[in-house]
């Protein structure tokens, strides 16, 4: 089974009023951008019969071996956003009262602006490593509710670039708080 970053469970459903960034940034990169940087010098001769699709673009049929190639419209590059960090989830007492600091995954404004991660103080839960959960606030501070291939559970928040980040033999795996450098112990 493919391994994808652990998706944070429904913390966002509890964060209706939270504002996490605006605008997005996609910059060019070393790997070839198949959709946006493709050679435009192709003959446009047709397309597949599939009509359903998503996203802008147009089909092109241009290869010498005559299979159709779809060319997508690119999003304009945008400056990187500054993550809205209300608290430090690794701090000893990041929030006041009986609240704890939880990461928030990015949420998009539109197709070209995917948003950025953030953090927020919320009422602290009680779940620890491996406890089944429904939302991140089911877990206590320093833990996250994530979806794993063996069910939704609280996992300890860790730092991906720190050696032995979990300290208990578990592996610090990337979670979908993309760009934060944080992971979950699994």
């Amino acid at each position, binding site marked *: 089974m493919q391994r994808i*970053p652990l998706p944070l469970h429904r913390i966002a459903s509890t964060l209706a009023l939270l504002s996490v960034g605006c605008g997005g940034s996609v910059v060019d990169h070393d790997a070839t951008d198949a959709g946006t940087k493709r050679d435009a010098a192709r003959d446009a001769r047709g397309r597949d019969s599939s009509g359903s699709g998503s996203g802008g673009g147009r089909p092109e049929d241009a290869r010498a071996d005559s299979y159709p190639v779809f060319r997508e419209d690119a999003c304009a590059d945008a400056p990187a956003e500054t993550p809205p960090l209300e608290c430090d989830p690794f701090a000893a007492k990041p929030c006041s009262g009986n609240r704890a600091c939880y990461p928030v995954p990015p949420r998009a404004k539109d197709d070209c602006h995917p948003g950025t991660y953030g953090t927020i103080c919320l009422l602290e839960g009680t779940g620890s490593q491996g406890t089944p959960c429904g939302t991140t606030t089911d877990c206590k501070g320093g833990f996250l509710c994530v979806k794993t291939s063996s069910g939704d559970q609280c996992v300890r928040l860790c730092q991906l670039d720190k050696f032995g980040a979990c300290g208990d033999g578990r592996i610090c795996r990337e979670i979908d708080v993309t760009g934060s450098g944080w992971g979950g112990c699994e």
Partner: protein
Amino acid sequence: MKVLGPAHVLLTSATLALGCGSRTTLKWEEGPPPPPECLLDKDCEGFGDRCFPVACVEGKCEATPPVDCNDRNPCTSDVCDPNTGACAHPLATLDLDGDEHRSPLPGKRAGDPDSCGDDCDDTNPKALPGGAEICDGVDNDCNGIVDDRATLAPAGDAIKISDGTTRASPGSLAYAGGASFLGAYSGQVAKRDSVYLANLSPLVGRVGKANRFTTSPADAYGGPLAWTGDRFGIAWTDRRDARGSTINYEVYFNLVNPDGTKRTADVRLTHADYFSINVSMAWTGNQFVVVWQDDGLTKHDDNGIFAQRVDVNGAAIGGNVRLHEDDGRGQTAPAIAAGPRSLGVAWMHGDSQSHELVFAAFDYELAPLVKPVSLTGPMSPGVAATVYFNEDRFVILWYDPDGPNKTIF
């Protein structure tokens, strides 16, 4: 047709002369003496076969002792020439591939003492006792092991395919015939995860640069690949459709040309908020079947296993189908494989503290063929089921770190 001989005629005549219903005490010996069965040897049936000779002895045909050609050698065929009565003893086994080693007798194993042959494969001259074993898929030395000492280790160094990205994670690898493979992986650039494709060759490694396949700036992860013969199908999950306060991953599908280029517009397969993730896919020969776990399509927001059929041109066939309604304990991490007439799907059933691996078979229209069966007892950390179809059965593998020696089953 058999012609009645003289003795039979006599008896019949006598019976007739006595009238209907009568019984006679006559015996044929008591009648006139029968003519001789034979006068000469040549009058006897089978005359001329020197292996089973017959002779006319006092008017009767009598078999004389046959020629004994048995040489008491099980490895020969004992043959008697009927024209001459001479024995021959050709070998009972053959050397059809011309490697000077003979195949065993039927039902015997090559090399066994009574097998009379030591060629383990008489259709292949590269297989013979004493041959030099090379890595060619043949038991060259007939020791019962194909490619001795071969391992599943790579023939060469590992090929890095994720240049230019960070935090890469494997998606899948698909064989495209000939010497061509396509690899899919998720990688991060500028703090965004995308799905990348890399053309691979066992001879030259990665062919060209990897292509960024998902061009939306939103994170995307995946994806399983399947080769149809002239194109790939690929599925993945991404959150381009998330808006406002709602977390939303949706499952997407597209077709990929042999060179890794996108063939048509991305096809969105799911339309429900929250998590449509953990995608697996199979090609049946005329359609793709994509499965995933979803908590936005279930009645109680629990994780369920869903499937979607997609035709060869990338058009969805019907709608999302929940494969199995359960008690709401949760279904996660589906894996699918296609057999000749059925689909095999394995998934985890339960929650993080107690779950079990479940398997069920479905027909190509996603109707269940059998009730789901549990393949394990309750596990706490066991994960990562994979399903393959092999010859005539589905093979399911999974990882249970609590099993003996951290077992892969």
